[in-house]
C-alpha cells in the first residue's frame, strides 16, 4: 500500500534499506548452510529416562527456556538482569518493526498506542544499552571477555535505539523533517550488512544451539530439569 510520499533522498535510502535486507537474507542463508555443513551427531545410547522425557521434550523445553526465567539459576537469581534482557530484545523487535513499517505503513506508526509503545521500548532499550556499555567497560570479567566486536555492537545498537526513538518522534510530528528517518534507515542498512559477520547474529544460531542441547539432554533424561 502507498504509505507515504517520501522525498527522493528518503526514497533512495528506503531502497538501500531493502537491498541491504536482501543481501542479509542471502548471507544468512549461506551462514546456515555453513553451520549445517558440519557433521551431525546422534546419541547412540538408549534413552536415559524414557518414561519422563525424551529428545523432543528436551528440545521444546530448551527452546522455551528463554521464556522461563525460573528455569535457570542465572535468570532466577538475576531476575532484574533478565528483565533488562527482555526489554532490550523487545526494543530490537520494535526497532526492526519501525524500520520496515516506516517504509510501507507509515500511518500505522502514527497511531497513538503504537507510537507510544515503540518509543517506550526504544528509549528503555537505549537506557539498558547505556547500562550494558558501562557494565562491559567497568566489570573486570566483562572487559576480559569482550572483543572490539562486542564493544562496537553494543555502541551501535544503543545509538540505533536512540535514533529510532527520535525517528518515531519525527513520524508523529514531534520533531521536524525526515533527517532522523534517513539516518535511522542508513544505520539499519549498515546493521543488515554487518550483523551476519558479527556477534549480533547470535539470534540466528539460538534455535539451533538450544534445540541441539535440548535433544541431547532430553534423550539422557536431564531436560526438563527436575526441581527439588
Amino acid at each position, binding site marked *: 500500500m502507498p504509505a507515504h510520499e517520501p522525498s527522493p533522498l528518503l526514497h533512495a535510502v528506503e531502497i538501500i534499506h531493502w537491498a541491504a535486507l536482501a543481501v542479509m537474507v542471502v548471507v544468512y542463508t549461506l551462514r546456515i548452510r555453513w553451520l549445517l555443513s558440519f557433521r551431525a551427531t546422534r546419541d*547412540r545410547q538408549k534413552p536415559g529416562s524414557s518414561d519422563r522425557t525424551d529428545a523432543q521434550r528436551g528440545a521444546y523445553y530448551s527452546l522455551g527456556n528463554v521464556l522461563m526465567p525460573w528455569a535457570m539459576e542465572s535468570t532466577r537469581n538475576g531476575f532484574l538482569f533478565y528483565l533488562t534482557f527482555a526489554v532490550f530484545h523487545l526494543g530490537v523487535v520494535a526497532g526492526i518493526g519501525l524500520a520496515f513499517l516506516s517504509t510501507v505503513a507509515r500511518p500505522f506508526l502514527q497511531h497513538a498506542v503504537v507510537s507510544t509503545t515503540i518509543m517506550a521500548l526504544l528509549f528503555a532499550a537505549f537506557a539498558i544499552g547505556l547500562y550494558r556499555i558501562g557494565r562491559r567497560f567497568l566489570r573486570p570479567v566483562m572487559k576480559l571477555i569482550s572483543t572490539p566486536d562486542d564493544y562496537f555492537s553494543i555502541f551501535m545498537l544503543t545509538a540505533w535505539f536512540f535514533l529510532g526513538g527520535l525517528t518515531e518522534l519525527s513520524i508523529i510530528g514531534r520533531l521536524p523533517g525526515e533527517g532522523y528517518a534517513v539516518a535511522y534507515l542508513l544505520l539499519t542498512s549498515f546493521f543488515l550488512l554487518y550483523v551476519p559477520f558479527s556477534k549480533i547474529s547470535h539470534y540466528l544460531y539460538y534455535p539451533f544451539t538450544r534445540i541441539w542441547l535440548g535433544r*541431547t539432554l532430553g534423550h539422557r533424561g536431564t531436560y526438563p530439569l527436575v526441581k527439588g
Partner: protein
Amino acid sequence: MSARENKDTTYKIQVMRDILAKKLTRSVVGSLVACVHCGMCNEACHYVLSHPDDPKMTPSFKADQLRKLFKYNHDWTGSVIPWWVGAKEPHTDADLDVLKDIAFGTCTNCRRCTLNCPMGVDTAVLNRIMRGLLSAVGVMPEGVRVVSKDQWEVGNQMGVLKEDYLDTLDWMSGELASEVGDETARIPIDEPGTEVMYTINPREAKYDPRTIAAAAKIFWAAGESWTMPSEGWDQTNFGLFSGDDQLGGAAARRVYEKQKELGAKRIVISECGHGYRSTRCEGPNWAGIDQDWEMESSVFTMLRYIKEGRIKVDLNKLDKRTTYHDSCNLARSCGITEEPRELLRLVSNDFVEMTPNRAENYCCTGGGGAMSMSEYTPRRLRSAKIKADQIAATGAKIVVTSCHNCVDGLSDLIKHYKLGCEVKQLVDLVADALIIEECAVMKKPKVVVEMPKPALPLHGRRILVVDDEPDVRIFLRTVLEDAGAEIYEAADGNQALAMARRHKPDLISLDLSMEGKDGIETFAELRSDVQIRDIPVCVVTGHPEFREVIYQRAVPMPEGYMDKPVKEDELVDNFRRILDLAEHHKVHA
C-alpha cells in the same frame, strides 16, 4: 626460543588445528559461534565464586580459548580480521602451557555453566575439546598422562594387574562368605550367561574393596545370577577427562565386548559418576556402537531389588543425619537425580537436601580428573569452599554420593575445612541395612549335600610366621598347626629374610610394625630377591594405616591382607585361599 623448539611448536599447533577440524560437529560449532559474552555463566561456576578477584575463572573466558582457535581457522570474520573478534592461535610452548593451566586447572567440566547459559552454549564440551587438543600434543598434567597411559596399556586407569584384581575379588569372596555365614557365597568370575555383569571403578579394587564386598552381599541376598569379568571390568574412562575420544572408545569397547563374550543380559555399573556417563552415555558414541543391550547404574539395580521384594532393608539401622550430593555427571549429563534419593530415603530416616541440589548442585571439586592433577590442589581446595558451605549448612554427619570421584573430592574438602562428617555410598548403606532373613536368598530351598569330611585345610603347607610379639606367634602357630601346617617362626625382618631364603616356605605371614627392620622394608626386600619374590605374602597387622604405604611400593602387592585381631577360621580360610590361588597361577603360568 630455539629454531628446533619453534619447529616443534609449529608442528604441535598444526596437529591441534587438524584435530579441531575433525571434532567440529554441528552442535560444537553452534556452541562456538553463539556466545554473546553476556557473562550469565559467571556465577554458575564454583571457581568464579571462590576466586571473585580473578576474572580468568569465568567460564566464557575458558571457552574462548578454543573459540579463538576456531575463529582464526574457520570463521569468516576471524580469518579476515582476527583482532576484531578475538581470533588467535597459540605460538609458543608457553602459550600452550597457559592453555593447559586453563583447560585442566580451572575447570572440572561439571557443566553447571552450560545449564545456566541462555544461549545453550555447552562450555564444558568446549573445554573438553581443548583438553583433547592439548593431550594430543602431549601438553597435559603429569597425572593425566600417567592415568591415560595405564588405561591404554593395562586396561584400567589405576594400572591394577589382573592377578591383583582377581586376588582382591578372591579376598572379598572370603569376606562375603564369612560375613553372611554361607560357604557357598562367593563372587563369581567370568560366569557365562548371567543376568548381570558387574563393573567397577579400579579405585574399588585398589583402595576400597569394601564396596565390592558390599555389592556382592546385595547380589547374594537378592539371589541374583551375576558375575564379575576378569577383564573389561573398569567402567571408568579417562578419555572423558583428557578429551581423548579414541581412548574413550577403546575403554568403553573393552567393557561392551566382555559383556557380549560372557552373554550377560545387562551391565551394572557401580556407583561412579564419570564411569556411568562414560559407559552408559558417551561410550556408545565414542565406540561407534548402537546400544542394543541393557546398562544401568547399581543404584537402579538396588532400588529394583527392594521394589521387587528381593531384598529388604531396615530404615532405622542408620542413626545419623544424611544428605545427598549429586554427582555432576549423573545429574547434569545423565539425568539421574530421583532414584538415588528414593533409595536413600529407604535406608535413612533423617535425610536432608543440600541447597542447591539435583542438576543445580555444585561440583565436589574433584571432578574432571582434578584428583589426579596434584599441581592444582591448592586452587581446587580453595574452590571447594562453596561445597564445604553447602555441606555444613545441612548439619549432616554422612554425605552420601553415588560417585567414587566425589567420595575422594568430598573427603578431601571435608578434611580441609574440618567439617566433621564422613562420605558414604549408597551401596555401603544398603548392604549395612539388609535384613538378611527376609531376603530372596533365604527363601530359596536349601540343598544339603553330604560331603566326605575334608582333610585338614593346610595339610602339608609350610608357613613362615613373622611377628615380633611372642604371644601372637604362639597364637598363629597353634591355629595353623591345628589346620595341618608346618610352621617356621621369625621375630624380626632380618630373621624372616634369612629363614625365607633357607626354607622357601609356601606362604609368609608378615607383621608390619616390628622392632628393627619393619614389615614394610622386609616386604620390599622379599619382593626384590629373585629367589623368594614369588612366595605369597599375607600381611597380618594391627596398623591398618600402613596398608596404603605397602600398596604404594613399586613392587607387586601382597597376596593377602588381614587386620589384627584375626579370627581363627578366617585366618585358616584366607591362607588356604592364597595358597590355592598361588598354586593355580603356578599351574597356568
